[in-house]
């Protein structure tokens, strides 16, 4: 397959410059792909899809009939990030996670940032993800965001922007690891020539970070808490548990006794020290949060508060994930770090402000409207692709509950060549790097590139027909 008919069409293309020539750091890959004989690439693509199905690397779609599983669509053509660009992203992410941790810790302690008037207190207190039960908690090193999957997008101007922080239970890292395994088999020569930075240290780094949370414990037992096999990210939960060699547990496997947390085994109760929980705050402990939760562990929060068990991510950290509060992150960075944000936010209109709301209601056909507390592409309006009826519905919803809505300009997300039938077409992508934070911050060199498989679509979420690509971060000193 050749790129000769490929057009960038006025979008920022991750692989080709406006004049149609490959960007310098991707030339080797372009040459390799073009040197493959006809049909080769398609055969590889089909082989990769078969492999993913055989391996059962699937996700569940909510609302679909029980047990319905799909493979996460996967495109062979990787997204490549030059070394210098990555350094910029990495510095920006470290700065941002640092500030977010300081912010959350402040909110659950002295609330200085509110007293100093940097963020209006009512914005925080009205956030659905604000947990007053978390006041006064002191997680090790005052870290509340241990695992983060920040969503970045690149606009037409070629700059990266932060779209969402995803602090609560970010998913997708297993696809980063699996996609890489597939691509290494298909393009081995390119890996050697390009100095692609490896991603396979992630499970070890994750385990190390989790173990470090059990302060003073010689042989801490880490477990991964999953909502169970019907959760859309169940594959990832079992995969990460397997890769780390830790137990995958459900709420019913755990019990709090005498203030400590135990798991129920065939030989009795065994102490648990650290829980990597992939269950939302709401469902974690029916004694503290939602009473009807069947997924949680009664007494877990009391054990956590008493320092008998560590939780990652820390409960309550979602307060900084609210899409209204997101808009204040650049202010937080200035407040806590004394510097401007290295990675800018996407400009955001906050509907609870009268002027912003007025503007949003008048420009619904141009903006992307999001509900403050939903993720996965749910509760969202993409103005330019919406119908009149949809816009009217959103106008009603915004006016009924302005605090719950934000709007952003529709970005021209960058594109990457993607295999469509027997040729390449540009498809819009975002980028989700993964950041681990214990005593120190580690940014995995890579991340999940999600791709909107539908022509022209800007929605990359897997629940909405999005797929993924492998993401190659090049090492400094390579051909970049």
């Amino acid at each position, binding site marked *: 397959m050749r790129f000769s008919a490929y057009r960038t069409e006025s979008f920022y293309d991750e692989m080709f410059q406006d004049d149609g020539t490959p960007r310098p750091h991707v030339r080797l890959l372009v040459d390799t792909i073009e040197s493959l004989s006809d049909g080769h690439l398609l055969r590889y693509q089909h082989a990769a899809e078969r492999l993913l199905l055989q391996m059962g690397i699937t996700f569940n779609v909510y609302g679909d009939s029980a047990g319905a599983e799909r493979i996460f669509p996967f495109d062979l053509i990787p997204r490549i990030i030059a070394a210098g660009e990555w350094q910029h992203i990495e510095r920006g992410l470290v700065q941002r996670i640092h500030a977010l941790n300081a912010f959350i810790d402040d909110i659950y302690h002295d609330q200085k940032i509110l007293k100093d008037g940097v963020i209006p207190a009512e914005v925080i207190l009205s956030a659905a993800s604000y947990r007053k039960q978390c006041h006064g908690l002191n997680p090790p090193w005052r870290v509340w965001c241990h695992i983060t999957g920040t969503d970045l997008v690149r606009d037409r101007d070629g700059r990266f922007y932060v779209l969402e922080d995803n602090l609560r239970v970010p998913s997708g890292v297993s696809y980063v690891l699996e996609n890489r395994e597939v691509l290494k088999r298909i393009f081995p020569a390119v890996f050697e020539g390009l100095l692609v930075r490896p991603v396979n240290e992630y499970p070890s780094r994750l385990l190390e970070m989790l173990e470090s949370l059990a302060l003073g414990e010689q042989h801490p037992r880490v477990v991964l808490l999953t909502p169970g096999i019907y959760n859309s990210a169940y594959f990832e939960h079992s995969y990460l548990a397997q890769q780390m060699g830790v137990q995958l547990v459900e709420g019913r496997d755990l019990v709090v006794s005498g203030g400590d947390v135990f798991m129920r085994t*065939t030989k009795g109760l065994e102490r648990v020290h650290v829980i990597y929980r992939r269950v939302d705050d709401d469902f974690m402990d029916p004694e503290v949060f939602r009473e009807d939760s069947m997924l949680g562990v009664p007494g877990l929060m009391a054990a956590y508060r008493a320092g008998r068990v560590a939780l990652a991510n820390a409960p309550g950290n979602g307060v900084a994930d609210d899409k209204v509060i997101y808009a204040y992150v650049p202010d937080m960075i200035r407040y806590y770090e004394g510097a401007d944000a290295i990675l800018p936010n996407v400009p955001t209109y906050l509907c609870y402000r009268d002027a912003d709301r007025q503007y949003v209601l008048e420009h619904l056909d141009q903006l992307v409207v999001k509900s403050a507390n939903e993720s996965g592409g749910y509760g969202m309006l993409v103005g330019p692709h919406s119908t009149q009826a949809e816009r009217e519905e959103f106008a009603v919803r915004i006016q009924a509950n302005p605090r719950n809505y934000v709007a952003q300009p529709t970005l021209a997300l960058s594109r990457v060549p993607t295999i469509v039938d027997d040729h390449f077409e540009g498809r819009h992508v975002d980028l989700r790097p993964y950041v681990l934070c214990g005593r120190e911050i580690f940014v995995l060199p890579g991340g999940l590139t999600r791709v909107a498989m539908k022509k022209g679509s800007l929605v990359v979420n897997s629940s909405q027909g999005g797929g993924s690509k492998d993401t190659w971060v090049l090492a400094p000193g390579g051909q970049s």
Partner: protein
Amino acid sequence: MITPAQPLLSRVANAVYWMARYIERAENVARFLDVNHNLMLDLPGVFSSQWQPIINTTGDRELFAERYGEATQQNVVRFLAFDAEYPNSIYSCILAARENARSVRETISSEMWQQINSLYLMITAEARKTVPESLPEFCHAVRMGCHLFEGITHSTVSHNEAWYFTSVGRRLERADKTTRVLDVKYFILLPSVADVGTPFDDAQWSALLKSVSGFEMYRKKYGRIAPDRIVEFLLLDGEFPRAVRYSIGRADQALHAITGTPRGGFSCASEQRIGLLRSELDFARVEAILEGGLHEFFDALQTKMNTIDECIGNDFFAQRPEGAGIWA
């Protein structure tokens, strides 16, 4: 330094036990179908209505009658192979085995998962048809797929506590199925006196042996087809892997490996119950069993095996209240 074994979650133990049981069940249902079909081919006409007995082996006769009515080949095959609403169809068993496997994917090996997933993809593709295009090929594929799973299980995971639970599950299921197939032959197909020793009767007994892959092994040991010897072989043989005594013996061994209690003693109800059954079978004489009534013996045997299953649930899988000891 010896690293202590990782403790096994009760839920995981339960899931691997049932995963193995369901795979074994699927394999046995495929065996019943295959052999019955084969028998029809050998004795056309005479046996045209002989699909009812295999429904009886399942113990779900009423359910079948209610849903399908007449036991035609098509109805029986549909029911036992593909019926998604019948929990013991091959289709349902493989789905259930896979759901269990999925819930413990980090415990079983990737190879095990991939094999169970292949079986799942095969059965879901097949089940779109009303009945399999070729019943023998289909049954063969299921049997081989299940054998492959058993082999992969044997050779890709450590023979640790979780593995022993798969062993207990498989052996108990197998003992149960062998009992059922014998029971049906003996009482539902009980030949009239005039038929004993005729080719008609021989063919049935041979089919029964074949359904548990026991024909060749039986021939080597006993030669002639003789009902009491066949009962002895399938119930009390200590070497044939599908014989009830052999299966119970292995389940007993696996249970002791789990608890660490020496064989010959017990530390929990499951061990005590299975030990009693094992010694009963070890020292039984087939003549005495036949005198007391084979059907009565089977009934008692199944009750004992059900009790063992319940005890295993209580001893190892039950979500015990906090603080309670393991044998509480």
